[in-house]
C-alpha cells in the first residue's frame, strides 16, 4: 500500500468517524438541551453542541463540492482564452 492510498483510506475512516461523531454530538446536544436541569449554562452548552455539530455536518457535506469548486475556478483561470467565434 502506497502512502497515497494510506492517506485516502485514513481520510475515509476519519470521515466516517466524523459522521458518527456528528450524530453523537447532535444527540448529546439535544439531550443536554432538553434535560430537566434548570441551569441556564448547561442548556447553552447543549445548544452550542448542536450548533457545532450542524456546522460540522454542513462543511462535511460541502467538502467535496468546495474542492471541486477550487479546482474548477483555478483551472478556468489557467486556461487560455477561447478563440473568438468565427462568423
Amino acid at each position, binding site marked *: 500500500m502506497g502512502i497515497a492510498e494510506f492517506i485516502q483510506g485514513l481520510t475515509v475512516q*476519519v470521515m466516517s468517524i466524523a459522521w458518527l*461523531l456528528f450524530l453523537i454530538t447532535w444527540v448529546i446536544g439535544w439531550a443536554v438541551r432538553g434535560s430537566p436541569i434548570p441551569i441556564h449554562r448547561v442548556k447553552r452548552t447543549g445548544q452550542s453542541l448542536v450548533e457545532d455539530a450542524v456546522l460540522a455536518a454542513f462543511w462535511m457535506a460541502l467538502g467535496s463540492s468546495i474542492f471541486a469548486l477550487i479546482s474548477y475556478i483555478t483551472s478556468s483561470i489557467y486556461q487560455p482564452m477561447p478563440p473568438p467565434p468565427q462568423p
Partner: protein
Amino acid sequence: MTNADVLLLAMDLAILTYVIGVLIMALPIPYAGFKRWGVRLIADGISAAVLISIFSIIITLGDLLLGNLNVSWPSFHSWLAARTAVLVAVFTALTYLTSALKATPYAFITSPINIALTYVSLALSSLKVIYFLSSLVSNLRNELAALGILLYSIPFRVGRSVGAFLIAASIVMYVGFPLMPAFIAQFQPSNLEQFRGVMRIQGKVVDSLYHRVPYPLMYFYSTEGGEEPLGVIIGDRNGTFTIGGGKDILPREFKFLTEVGFMGYYFSTEPSYISSNESTVVLRVPSLIYSSGLALLKPRDVRVEDYIVGNGILSVVLTGNEGFNDLVLAKLANTTVTKVTINDEVFSCSWNPFEWNGIDIVVCEIKPNDVGAGKLNVTVKYTPTGYVKPAVDERRITYIESVSELLLAYISLGIAYVYTFIFLPGVYVTFLVMMSAALARVFGGGARIRLI
C-alpha cells in the same frame, strides 16, 4: 516521484486536513478553544487545495515576471562566469606577485597581499554559494515549489511555515537571482572597472624572412635605461610568447624595449619595443635568417634579395654596402653542414663550438675576400635538425613603479572587491531571503480566514 505525484499526495493531505478539521468540529467537547482548531484546519485544507490548484500559475508567474523584467538565466550565468574569471585572474596575479616578491627587497608587501588573497578566496567562496543557490533554484524550482506545497498540506500545520517559505522562495529567488547583476552594477564602485581587464599581450618572433623563430629568449628592458632586464620570457616552439594575463605585474601604461636571445646571440627587433597599446605584436629580427637548426647572421642593413629555404638547402642572395663581409653561420652541434658556397666558390668553415644556456652551438665566421659589388650569394647544404629549448629560468615582469602606489592601489582594489564580491551579493541574497519570508507570510498565515 514526479511533481504530479507530489501534488496528488498534497491534495490527499489537504482533504485529510479538512476532514480532521470537520471531525474536531463535530466532537462533543464544549470547549471553544478546541473547536477553533477545527475551523483552522478546515481553512488550512482549503488554502492548501487552492495552492495545489494554482501550482502551474505559480510556476508561470516566475517566467512571466522574468520576461517582463527583461532578464534571463543564461545572461546571469554568463555574468557569474565573467566574475569568476576576474576573481581567478586576480587570485593568480596576487599569488604570483607574492612568490615573485619573496626574494626581493619588497618582500614586506607580501604580508598585506596575503590578507588580500584571503579576501579573494573568501569572495570565491561567496561566489560558490551563489552558484550553488542559483543552480538549486533554477534547476529544482518546480520540485521546490511542489515540495513546499506538500509540506504546506500536512495536517496540524506541521510544515506550514517551511512549506510556505519554499513556495515563496521558488518565485522570489527564481526572479531575483537573474536581477542580481543589475543590483550590483547599481552600487559597484567605479574603480573596479579599471582593474577589470587583465592586460595580456601576445607576441610572435620572426626572422628576417618572416619565418617563425622557435623558443626565442625574450628580454624586456625599461625605456629609462638600466642594464638589468625587467623580465626574461621564453617563447614557445612557434615563436609566440605572452606577457600579462595574470603571469606578470604590468603597469597600466608601459613601453618596454625588447631584445631576442637566439643561438648564443642577442638581436635587436623591429619594432624595438612593445607597449600597452597593442594586444598582439610581431617582432621581426632583421639580422637573423633561421632554418631548422641553422642560422645565418647578417648585418642589419644588408637586404635579402632572393632566397631558397628548405630541403636541406639554405640559399640567400644578400646585397649591402660594398665591402660587407661580416656574416656568421651558426648551427646546433648535431646539425651537419656538408657544403658552404659563397658566390659559387666553396668556402671552408672553421667551426668554433660554445655552449649557450644548455645548447651546444657551433659557429663559423664567413669573411670572404671578394665581395662582388656588395652582393653575396651564400648557399649552405645541411641536414636539418630541430631546435631545443634553452635551459633558462624565466623571470616574469614585476614592474613596480612605486611601492606606495602599488600598495594603495591594491588596498583600494581589495576594498572594492570585498564590497562588490562579498558585501553586495550577501546583501542581495539576504534581501531575497527576506522577501521570500514576507511572501511566505502571505501564503502561510498572515491572512486569517473566518468561516464561522
